[in-house]
Structure formats: C-alpha cells, structure tokens
C-alpha cells in the first residue's frame, strides 16, 4: 500500500526499516542521535535503536567515513550522514582514496558496503557552503556508485538499494525536496534498483535528461511546451553512476534531440559526460547538437536575487527546448 508522504520522511522510513531488518546497519554522523539530525531525518532512531546504532559523532567528517570503512570490513553496513553535502569535502580522501579503492587494491577479496548520505543542492538560501552539488567529483571516481532521487518513492527505494549494495554508494538527497516533494511511497520492501532511470513523462519530440530537484522545473517546462505541441520525454536518471545509457539511448532513438538539465555547474558536469557518450555512440541519430541547461560555472550566492539568476528554472529550460526543437 502506498501512502502520500514527504521525501524526507521516506528517507527516514528506509533507514528505520533497514535498521530493523539488519542488525549490521547503523547510522552515524553529526547530531544524528539525540537531536535527530540537522534536518530531522534520523528523528526517533536513537530512541528506537540506541546510542550505538544512531551514533552522534564529533565534527570529524574524515573520521566518520573512515570509521564506516573500518566497520564495513567487519561485516557492518554503516550509513554515514554528512550534515550538509558541502561538508563532504572534509571526508573526501576517505571516500575517494580509501573506500573507492579498497576492493581493487585488495585484489577483489573484500567489498566496502557503506552509504554516505549527503543533503545537497540550492534554492534554500544556503549560500556558498550549504548549497553545493558535488556529484561530478564522485561520478568521476571509479569504485563508487552515486544516486540522486527526485521523488519520495525513489528516496526510499534507492536508499534501501544503496544500503544493500556491496559497494560504497553516495546518496545525494536534495534539500529543496525534503518537504516540497510529496508523493506515494510503498509501505515495506520496495527496492528501486541502482542503475535504472525512470521515464517521468513520455514524448516523441525531445529527450530531456535530468535528476534530483531539476526534475520539477523540467516537468513544468514539458507541460508548458505540450500546450505548444512540443512533446518532451523527461528521463529522471535517479542513478548518476552508473547512469542508465540504455534508457537515454532508447528515448533518443525516438526523438533524435537531447537536452540535459542539471543543477551542478556546467563544466565537466554530468551533462558533459552524457553528451560525450552520445557523440561516441549515437552520433548518427542526432538531428541537433546536444544542449545543456545547468548552473553557470559559479558559486552559489546567498542573495535570493543572485541565486535565482544562477539556478536553472522552467523558463530557461523552455527556452532551450524551443531552440533545440527549431534547430
């Protein structure tokens, strides 16, 4: 049975169910215990599972990830919370050098089943250090998986999949969606497999590939353009590494035109990679150049006026699609 719940509640539900299912799953991070997390994601878990399964840590991101790696070597499945995705840089070495390489340098004899949850993204008046989108750094690193749900359903199903996955998974939860995204979420064990995109809206004219909070303005733009007779197929990647090439290719075969929309900055964002792969493998089906609507190569400013100038929105996406359709 599916009920309507918020994205953040879906994350908590996944944590709670996985902790109840598997005694080796535990949560650790700053203020996750008594306080219930800066965003309240872990509320109630301390009371239900005790201090050491919902562990408050010092402000030591590198140690949080390193401890997770160590626990994973003894059969645990830690879920580490970075209070803000921006702070993940303080644990960067333990993620990219320790966790990501472990299996490779152990000759395949171990795995590293940790999840790093990171609240990411802007449009929340967060300024430079509470708004960032770090996905490309981790997509770029072999040995990691990266997921970025846009709906409550996926928030729950992907977190369950991430916890059960035997590899380090970076789970990017978008802060803008915490309360704003409400929708049906199944009770119980519905898994959203890592590596599978979802077609959010079917259409035969343009393929729009996006993920995370950008799914919302993308769908809004698609609705607006439908009134003008342009049918946009919106693909929500859900998993950024490995991204679902088959789903994108299948749509592109139908539409021959591709727009990538992401909140991350443009240069070497995921759009650059998707575009390059399309050039290499699907050049012959393209009727127009691959286009992108992204954040500019800039930091995330605090001023609402400045931040809105940088953020992709439905207007910018509509404009890009018109240009793409007219090409």
């Amino acid at each position, binding site marked *: 049975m599916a009920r309507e719940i918020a994205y953040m509640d879906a994350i908590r539900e996944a944590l709670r169910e996985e902790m109840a299912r598997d005694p080796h799953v535990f949560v650790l991070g700053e203020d996750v215990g008594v306080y219930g997390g800066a965003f309240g994601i872990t509320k109630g878990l301390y009371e239900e599972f005790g201090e*050491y399964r919902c562990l408050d*840590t*010092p402000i*030591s991101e*590198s*140690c949080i*990830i*390193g*401890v*997770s*790696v*160590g*626990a*994973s*070597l*003894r*059969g*645990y499945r*830690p879920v580490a919370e970075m209070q803000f995705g921006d702070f993940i840089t303080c644990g960067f*070495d*333990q993620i990219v*050098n*320790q966790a990501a*390489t472990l*299996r*490779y*340098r*152990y*000759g*395949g*004899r*171990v*795995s590293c*089943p940790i999840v790093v949850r990171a609240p990411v993204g802007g449009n929340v008046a967060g300024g430079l250090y509470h708004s960032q989108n770090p996905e490309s750094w981790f997509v770029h690193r*072999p*040995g990691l*998986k990266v997921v970025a749900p846009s709906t409550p359903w996926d928030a729950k199903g992907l977190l369950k999949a991430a916890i059960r*996955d*035997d*590899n380090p998974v970076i789970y990017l939860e978008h802060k803008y969606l915490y309360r704003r995204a409400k929708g049906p979420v199944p009770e119980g064990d519905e898994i959203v497999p890592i590596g599978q995109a979802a077609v959010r809206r079917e259409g035969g004219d343009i393929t729009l590939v996006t993920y995370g909070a950008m799914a919302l303005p993308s769908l809004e733009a698609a609705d607006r353009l439908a009134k003008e007779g342009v049918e946009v197929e919106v693909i929500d990647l859900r998993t950024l590494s490995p991204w679902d090439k088959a789903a994108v290719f299948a749509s592109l075969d139908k539409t021959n035109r591709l727009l990538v929309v992401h909140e991350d900055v443009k240069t070497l964002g995921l759009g650059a990679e998707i575009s390059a792969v399309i050039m290499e493998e699907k050049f012959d089906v393209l009727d127009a150049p691959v286009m992108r609507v992204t954040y500019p190569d800039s930091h995330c400013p605090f001023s609402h006026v400045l931040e809105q100038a940088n953020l992709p929105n439905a207007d910018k996406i509509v404009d890009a699609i018109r240009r793409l359709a007219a090409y």
Partner: protein
Amino acid sequence: MPSIKRHKFKLTTEQLQEMLYWLKLIRAFDERLSILVRQGRVRSGVYSSIGQEAIVVGTCFGLQKDDYIAPLHRDLGTFLMKGVSPGVMMAQMYARATGLSKGRDSALHSGVPELGIFGNTSMLGANTPVAAGIALTYKLEQRDNVVLAYFGEGAANTGDVHEAMNFAGVHKLPVVFICENNVYSYSMPIEKSMAIEDVAVRAEGYGFDGVAINGNDVLAVYQATQGAIARARAGDGPTLIECKTYRWHGHSEHDPAFYRSDEELAMWKSRDPLPTFTTYLRARDVLTDELLLEIETRVRREIDEAVAFAEDSPHPDPSEAATDLYA
C-alpha cells in the same frame, strides 16, 4: 623510558628466540628489497623499516589472530608476523598476480581481513579512522579484541590522526596507537614539524595515557604494548605509545637522505635493535652460536624462496587492469 628489566609480561625462552627470528627475517626482507630495487627487479614502492624492526616485532608479538592491525607504510614486517607468507609479500612487491593486490598496488596497500590486516592508502594517517571503526565493532560486540593503529611522527600532524584519537578516546575504543617517531618525515626533521618533544603528550588531549619509550628495544616495546593491550581488552580504552627510533635508509629507496649527517646516522646505528637484543639473549643464555646460525640460515633460505616464488609468479593479466572495481 622504561628500562629493559622492568617487564611484567613474562616471555619464555622459546618466545625470546622467536622474537629474534622475526627481527632477523624482517631485517633480511628489507635488505633484500633494497638490493632488488637497485637491480631494477622491484620497481618502486619500497619504504624500508631497517632500524625500526623492534617496533614491528614488539607490537605484533603475541597478538591474537582476530586482533586487527592497521600498519603504516614502512611496517612490512607486520604483515609477515600476522601471517602473510614471505613469498606472497615478495610477489606483492614484484607486482605479480600472486601478490595480495594481484599487481594493482605495491607494499602495504592491500590487506587480509581473515588475518586481521588492514592495508592503508598512501595518505599517511588515513588508516587510523579505519582502525577506530574496526575497534568500534569490537566494542559493540563486546569482544576482547584490539586494534593496533600505527602512524609516524609525520602523520601525527594529519587531521585524520587527530580525529581518530579523539573519537577513540570519546568511546574508549580498544585501540593501541603506535607512533613510530623516526625523526624524519621524508626530509623534514621533527623539530620543524612540531613544537613539542614527545608526540606522546598529545594523548592527554584525547583523554587517555601516552608514553614515550625506546623504540629500538624490542622488549620495551613489547612490554608497553602488552600493557596497553591489556587495558584495551579490559575496556579501559586507548593508549598512545610513542616509539623513539630512527630510519636508516631514506624515506624510500629512491631517497639518498642527504639532509642528515653521517654522525647522526652512525649514532643511531650504534643503537641497532638487533645486536642490542642478541646481547641481551646471550647474557641470559637464551642464545647460542648454533641457534644464531640456525636462525640466520633459516631466514636466508626463506628470503631466497620468497624471491624465487615472486620471480616465478606470473605478471597480472592485462584483462585484470580494470576489474574488481565493483562487487
């Protein structure tokens, strides 16, 4: 520094003889590696522990199989003492398919979970949070196992070592932190890298005891470690043991170490841990000429066999260059 006579953990004649065997084996292994590098047969990744063997032997001697070690880059002998065969270790240095990492990386960048060995990255000190994570699981399971976490006086200045010691102190984790103070972090003498004489005093800042000992005295190291291990097993938390020692070779075999004086090196060579120990054993009638010859013959044979095993081992197959990235 505790004197050699003040030990309370008794060692049998056989155990003392075994300690000598390990000292000799580890010295011989590193001496052979040094030659193999100069011959171009081992290409790189050799960080000699010559001069520091008493720390390896004194800390690892008497560890239980399911105790964990998280050594620093120089402690190749810890892998041997924990149960990796000299042949497999040599194959690891030769980058052969039979090495621990199947040629993916050299030296101690691999590990063996079933032997309680964690292999670190090249980021010095990054092993200590992982060690804390392993120790956390021992605490959760109320096991009486311990983790030995090693770092040099250079890595003592990293954030990871600070974060890990703080975390271990807060949770009274069963970790023994072993600081191998060999005076130089690559070319940098300790007086230029910290404003204190003894790293051991930092333990007070983490709420546990620290002690500085003579790291060239295998029995002093053994006694201090056993004392710390007993405390850890009893649930009394971590200890920091700073072992004062000296690195005879350069940072790596490619470093001519011109930054230090011949007099300084000669002074430290006069404190060679091996003759110090053999003199002690002879004085106690634990060592005869026959036994010494027997140990040296055995060591030479084992190193010869290890080199032969490595050289007879196949190179990794090129098809394995990008495998074992994901479970």
